[in-house]
């Protein structure tokens, strides 16, 4: 099964179809690419992008904490290495079962930025089945961009929680590292979520 899906293309589709939904991105190239895409699509700063730069493993847990406070769809763009650090969060998500939560795992079956070491998803771990066994209402696997576009579009109208495992491949290059601004990320994101227009930066 040839893997054709690029994380960059996948996230572009998410950004173009998420309206004002909160998007939480995993650390490393995921957040870097999301930042660059936001600039490319001329929607920078997208206040509801919650970039993470550390706390590997917590991307989808943060998304869970956000999802319970809003009725909008909330989208976590996580990685396999990250999620494997905190598989328990899938069981917590399955327990709380927020209908508006969509977890997109960019599963490249490796830790890329640290030297392309393979993770367990390159061997016997099937994250889609893990999510299903944790009680996710909908689970999907995608290996090309058209499949992803259809699946993501469908997911925006389903009652979740929804897991989309996107099998991605690395290009061998990483985007330029973006400004690391955790405090600005929180400031913009929180003011946006609280509809506080007076405190815009």
């Amino acid at each position, binding site marked *: 099964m040839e893997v054709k899906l690029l994380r960059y293309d996948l996230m572009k589709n998410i950004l173009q179809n998420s309206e004002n939904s*909160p998007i*939480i991105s995993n650390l490393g190239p995921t957040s870097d690419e999301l930042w660059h895409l936001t600039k490319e699509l001329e929607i920078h700063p997208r206040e509801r992008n*919650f970039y*993470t*730069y*550390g*706390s*590997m*493993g*917590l*991307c*989808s*847990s*943060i*998304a*869970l*904490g*956000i*999802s*319970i*406070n*809003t009725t909008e769809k909330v989208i976590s763009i996580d990685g396999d290495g990250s999620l494997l650090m*905190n598989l*328990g*969060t899938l*069981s*917590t998500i399955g*327990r*709380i079962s927020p209908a508006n939560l969509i977890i997109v795992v960019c599963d490249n079956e490796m830790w890329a930025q640290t030297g392309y070491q393979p993770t367990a998803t390159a061997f016997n771990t099937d994250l889609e089945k893990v999510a299903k066994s944790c009680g996710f209402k909908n689970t999907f696997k995608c290996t090309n961009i058209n499949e992803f576009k259809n699946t993501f579009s469908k997911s925006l109208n389903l009652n979740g929680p929804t897991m989309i495992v996107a099998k991605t491949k690395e290009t061998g290059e990483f985007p330029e590292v973006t400004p690391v601004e*955790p*405090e600005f*990320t*929180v400031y913009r*994101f*929180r003011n946006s*979520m*609280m509809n506080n227009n007076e405190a815009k930066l």
Partner: protein
Amino acid sequence: MDKWVKIIIDSLKEHNISVISYVPDISIDKVTKEIESDPYFKVIPASREEECIGIASGSYVSGVNSAIFMQSSGFGNCINALTSLNLPARIPIPIFINLRGEIGEFNIAQVTMGRSTKPILDVLNIPHVTLNNDINLEKKVSGNITLCYASKIPLAICISPLLHGGKIA
């Protein structure tokens, strides 16, 4: 409910903290059990204490104050999340920690982490207070929560067997 339990719950409400994430502990259960049956709160029991940090932080950044309950053993599972998310991003979370390794401790596995919790908090520059009795308890709990949100970083409110006098587990 015990006076100290009521004071903690009233303080949470006073500060609009309506989302609670926790991993259980038999003494903290006196509080979390009440919280779970109180419709004011949304409660998320997590699989691991580090996950609680993510959940509570997500709640805060989406506009709803959130607090965490854990045992000192669980604090050991949270360090990187606190240092790489809450401190740089400035996300305040009141964290209630039941201290093990105190008087009456029977389990050697609990001793070092219990007694290291406060020194580690000091190294990380995370403020903390220890509640050993109910003298000025309302002021200590509420006042430290106010301090937490003013500092924009987590603050640990540690409870000891002298406060809750409960069974250790």
